[in-house]
């Protein structure tokens, strides 16, 4: 092999090397740019969610007042919560707030959506915003208004001729919260179901009509099966929001000078109060453990709902 040829080959090799370098630089940039765009979200997610979550898991195994030294106590916080009658009482109250309004909330929202979309409703553009208005209202303001409505001499008792102490009677207090949840939530599920109904082809409904199906049969055998993913979404969202419930019971049936810092009496206090009350009492580890138990409960119920309601074969 001559020297010239060798030089050529070296140059060729260099060219071969330099070209991919340019290309790989460009490719690197192409690969990086999306992450740069994602960076603000990723950074905030890590700083405000992922890192605090990891810290709170660690914290749940410690006894910590919020300052000073933290003592490792293993699973003691979790065991203490499982042994706590108050924790179970608040868990039962949370289940009440989830299950009691579930059917009227989702069923009512669905029926309203069907009605507004049907030919029976004359002015759907009026009903849609009207039904959604409670959802737009701030929960604090809504609770304050409902405190007036449900007071001893309030609108509800006056209209129905009742003498129910909605805000102070512990057994009536939970029902007062349910009323507020129904009023505030039905518009939200109405909108979700209305959006879902647009996915049900009119041709299918017309075909069912031509085959002799009445309105109820069309809803049961056509609309509901087609709406299955939307119903699943609505149920899961309702479960999550019910388990995280805090504002409504504490503002509606709580009082400024009440026993716990959060306000609601134990008979109407949701499980989120365990998280907040323990922070107020300087029991940060216990609060973190309560939060993670709540998270686990939401996860388990959501998985169960997905398994029960998802379409077969998917």
């Amino acid at each position, binding site marked *: 092999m001559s020297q010239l040829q060798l030089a050529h080959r070296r140059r060729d090799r260099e060219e071969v090397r330099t070209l991919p370098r340019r290309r790989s630089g460009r490719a690197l940039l192409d690969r990086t740019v999306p992450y740069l765009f994602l960076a603000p979200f990723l950074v905030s997610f890590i700083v405000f969610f992922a890192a605090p979550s990891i810290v709170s898991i660690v914290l749940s195994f410690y006894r910590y007042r919020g300052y*000073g030294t933290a003592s490792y106590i293993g699973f003691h916080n979790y065991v203490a919560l499982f042994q*706590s*009658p*108050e924790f179970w009482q608040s868990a039962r109250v949370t289940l009440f707030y989830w299950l009691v309004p579930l059917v009227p909330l989702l069923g009512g929202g669905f029926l309203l959506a069907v009605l507004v979309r049907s030919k029976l409703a004359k002015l759907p553009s009026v009903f849609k915003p009207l039904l959604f208005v409670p959802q737009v209202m701030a929960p604090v303001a809504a609770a304050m208004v409902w405190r007036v409505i449900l007071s001893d001499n309030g609108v509800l008792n006056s209209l129905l001729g009742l003498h129910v102490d909605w805000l102070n009677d512990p057994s009536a207090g939970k029902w007062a919260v349910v009323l507020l949840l129904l009023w505030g939530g039905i518009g939200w599920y109405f909108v979700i179901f209305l959006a879902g109904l647009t996915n049900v082809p009119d041709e299918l409904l017309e075909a069912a009509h031509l085959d002799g199906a009445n309105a109820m049969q069309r809803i049961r055998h056509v609309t509901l099966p087609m709406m299955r993913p939307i119903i699943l979404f609505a149920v899961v969202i309702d479960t999550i929001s019910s388990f995280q419930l805090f504002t409504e019971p504490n503002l509606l049936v709580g009082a400024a*000078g009440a026993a716990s810092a959060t306000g609601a*009496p*134990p008979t109407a*206090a949701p499980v989120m109060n365990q998280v907040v009350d323990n922070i107020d009492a300087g029991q940060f580890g*216990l609060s973190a453990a309560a939060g993670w138990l709540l998270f686990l409960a939401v996860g388990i119920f959501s998985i169960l709902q997905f398994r029960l309601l998802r379409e077969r074969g998917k």
Partner: protein
Amino acid sequence: MWGTYTAANPSTTKGQSLNVVSGGGSDTDSVSKFRLELSSGKNIPDITELNYDEVPEFVNSGALADISAAVTPDLGNVTTAAKTLTSYDGQTVAVPIQVNEKLWFYRADLFAKAGIDPAQVKTQADFVAAGKKLQAVEPGSYIWNLPASPAPYQWGMVVSGNGASYSTKSPCAITVGSDPGTAQAFQAMKDLRNSGAVSTSIGDFTPQWQSALANGTLASTLSASWLPTFIEQYAPALKGKWAVAQWPEIGGAVGGSEAGGAVFVIPAASPHKAQALAFLTKTLMTASGASAYLQKNTAYIPNVTSLLQSPSVQDNSYFGPSLIKAYLAASSTYKVFPYDASNSAETTALGDQLANYLNSPATSPSSFLQTAQSQLASQVGCPYSQ
């Protein structure tokens, strides 16, 4: 107060300024904020206001400065009750602002109409009988209010005077499950709610409470010496009609207090301890400083003994002479509950169990106290652990 202090001490206060920061909307907010400041080690205030029942937690954790050297010279100026509030567990850590004596506020006009002499109302039975007597002439009027979930200070005032305690230090353990004083307080709350003489639907610090104090629905209330400002604010038109007496014996409580009182403490990590201490002691523990504060707050009952003879104290503009008379009488039986370092958790657990007991058909509170005992034993363990 700061202006008066700097004007009186120009050479020692040269270059100093006071920045007041709100601790939040409630006592709980304020304590949470203080905990966060201690946790971060940043923005630690030079002075923090606490209720005395919140002090043990911070003494136990070593977060407060020992201020005995600065406070001791002025201890002779203040009342016996105020002296009690300067220390916890043998450590001098606080400068008292307000001693929370237990006081019974009543509508003198309505009581006179019903023929009730508060001085003759000595026991819980007398108190209920007075309530019935009141309702005979003022239907729809109540002698106190205890809602389904009473405010912690309502039963806290009872347990502070009847020998109750929630724990022992040695051995370190929660003992509330078998504490007779707490059981007696719970029982008293239930008996009063069932008596018909007490409103069971009005909660403290609600709009209904404010209007009830102004419109005669509540003709009296068992409270503490912090209440006058609020009554004046809610019922300005009733000036001269509200008067003050001593508590009857409720739940076996003779005397006591509400959370002890309000105090200023200095964090151990405060960068300006000496300056903060000088300001507090000269303002609140000397006659010249406290009189300046008194001029700004006419409903304030000072802790400096010599100022108790001031005309504005002796004849309160709203309550007349009955306020200081009842206050001084209550001083003789002033007691502070034996608070431990886990008082926040204990108050929450016991408050919840009291609400459960009041709303159950059970006659005895023992099972509810046992529940609180097991809950606190498992969640808190030793109340003095850090």
